[in-house]
């Protein structure tokens, strides 16, 4: 499988990956690659700051569109600070739960709050 390297710095045009809208640009490129059966290598070279909002749209929503196995075998991350890698892990772990059974998850979360009071 051919690997396409995506430079986040180039896609966003900034060292700061803050806004969800910028994450959407990354997501669309990944999606394009996935749909053509390419492997994606995401380079975070020169990136200084990443919010979870950016990552939710950039990679989190992939779990809505593709099976976990496909994402796992088709994605790699490079040039990333350990803290930021941890952030990605957190976002992907959340996305896996989020898209599994959204309704049941919401129902449970409501009961947790109302049950606490």
């Amino acid at each position: 499988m051919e690997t396409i390297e995506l430079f986040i710095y180039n896609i966003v045009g900034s060292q700061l990956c803050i806004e969800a809208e910028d994450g959407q640009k990354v997501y669309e490129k990944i999606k394009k690659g996935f749909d053509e059966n390419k492997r994606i290598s995401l380079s975070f070279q020169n990136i200084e700051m990443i919010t979870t909002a950016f990552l939710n749209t950039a990679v989190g929503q992939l779990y809505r569109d593709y099976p976990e196995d496909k994402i796992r075998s088709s994605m790699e991350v490079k040039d990333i600070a350990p803290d930021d890698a941890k952030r990605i892990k957190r976002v992907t772990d959340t996305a896996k739960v989020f898209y599994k059974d959204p309704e049941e998850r919401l129902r449970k979360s409501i009961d947790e709050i109302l049950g606490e009071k």
Partner: protein
Amino acid sequence: MSDYKLENIDNGYKSYKQIIDFYDYYKDGFFQTINVHIENWFGGNMAAVLGSVSDLLMENLNTINFVIKDVEIKNLLLRNGFLSYYGHDIEIDDRHTTIKYLKIKPTDGRFFNNYIFGELINRPELPEMSQPLKKKITESIYELYVNAQIHSNTKFVYTCGQLFPAKNKIEFTFVDTGRGFKNVVNSALEPFGRHFNANQAIRWAIKDKNSTKGDVSGGIGLAILIEFIKLNKGKLQIVSDNGFYLLDETGEKDYDFPTSFPGSIINISVRTDDDASYSLIGEINNNDLF
């Protein structure tokens, strides 16, 4: 012409209540001239709260004059730029302890970046702190900014802060006058026929993985902020509608206000002499991110 007094405004419950009551008192009136007397004390970061409600009152073509006899308070609100929005000249902060009052559109990300870099990241007079801590503070503020962008539907966001070099502390306040936690969360819960009060909505929103966004996963930003504040032994306050959530060294508490704030306030107090390690506990394997 009407006079209203705000006194001893710090970051406590009574101070928020005073500003919310001030808004509530005038919110339905038009074309009034309101002289707001600020007395005894005013915490610089609270300018973000006062500015937000003053703007809403001015939308009804009310005129607001700040009457400040106390030289120190006036000096502070000139140095942090707050009074420059109300007919005063912009002044230089010769004591270098303020983080400027800022009012911007939530879509103006580039300008917000300049503000964060100018007022925080590249600031030589910041209290001494580790690089990872500085990054954590900055990330937290950015998370708040994008949260407001995504959820609040606010016209403007308001921020302001204060440096306390002798106390090794930074206070930073972030305000929006958008839909508020209760409305946003209850809209998402509507299909379930359930309804939260303001404090329940805040408690729900700050829990890890709880998100009101239907299509895109989320609900991590506020949870990360809370983890950071706990580790830092700092303080977090969230005010929205008539709810007030407080996290400090003694734990989490919530309180009600008799009247409602029209949006959300998030105030963080961070200890800069914190020697907690913010680097990762354990290794993270890049092959295990997905």
